[in-house]
């Protein structure tokens, strides 16, 4: 597995290319053996609950973030017939259209990749200790809870 936390802008496709190359070069993922990869890219929008969002701050609980993301990927690797999984998550000050999160899963066949990718995102949304503070026209506010999707 591969877990990154980034306080700088994430280029999702560069990150995906590098994550795959890194997993292959470390031997964690065998080239020619995966037939499917499912990815999810979460991006900051400029509106939420009918308010315009100018910027956002993402804070987290660093030592727990690492443990919890490891738990989440470990569970996915145990439950599903997948070969590898990776996550990167942004922290710090972000602007609309910035990439917030990327999840990638590799497997022999597509169903396992789709299911694991989706479950990892659900688990991340519900368990990974990140919090968003939105900066709107009317001031700053903490996001109270994540949408159901």
């Amino acid at each position, binding site marked *: 597995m591969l877990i990154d936390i980034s306080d700088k802008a994430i280029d999702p496709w560069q990150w995906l290319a590098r994550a795959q190359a890194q997993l292959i070069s470390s031997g964690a993922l065998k080239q020619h053996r995966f037939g499917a990869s499912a990815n999810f890219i979460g991006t900051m929008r400029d509106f939420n609950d009918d308010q315009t969002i100018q910027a956002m701050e993402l804070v987290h*609980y660093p030592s727990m973030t690492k443990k919890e993301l490891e738990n989440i990927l470990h569970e996915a690797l145990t439950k599903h017939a997948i070969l590898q999984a990776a996550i990167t998550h942004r922290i710090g000050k972000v602007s609309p259209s910035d990439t917030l999160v990327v999840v990638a899963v590799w497997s022999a066949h597509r169903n396992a990749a789709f299911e694991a990718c989706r479950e990892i995102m659900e688990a991340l949304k519900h368990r990974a*200790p990140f919090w968003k503070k939105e900066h709107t026209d009317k001031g700053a506010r903490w996001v109270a809870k994540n949408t159901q999707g």
Partner: protein
Amino acid sequence: MSIKVLIFASLSEQLGLSETELAADNLHTAQDVWNGISQQTADAAVRVAINQEYAQFSSAVKSGDEVAFFPPVTGG
């Protein structure tokens, strides 16, 4: 012989506290730790983690533990 306490996000702003140490004496559960930082009952949505793993307010704590309280997570 102490317990490290961390509070995050909106809860940290509400309590006016992000980090503190409490003497471990007489702190048996996460609820005892909460009572050491707030006179109010914790909102039902408040989550607790002991040593970076999710726990319950009834979970046991001991000296050297890191106990964190935080609102629902909103990452991703």
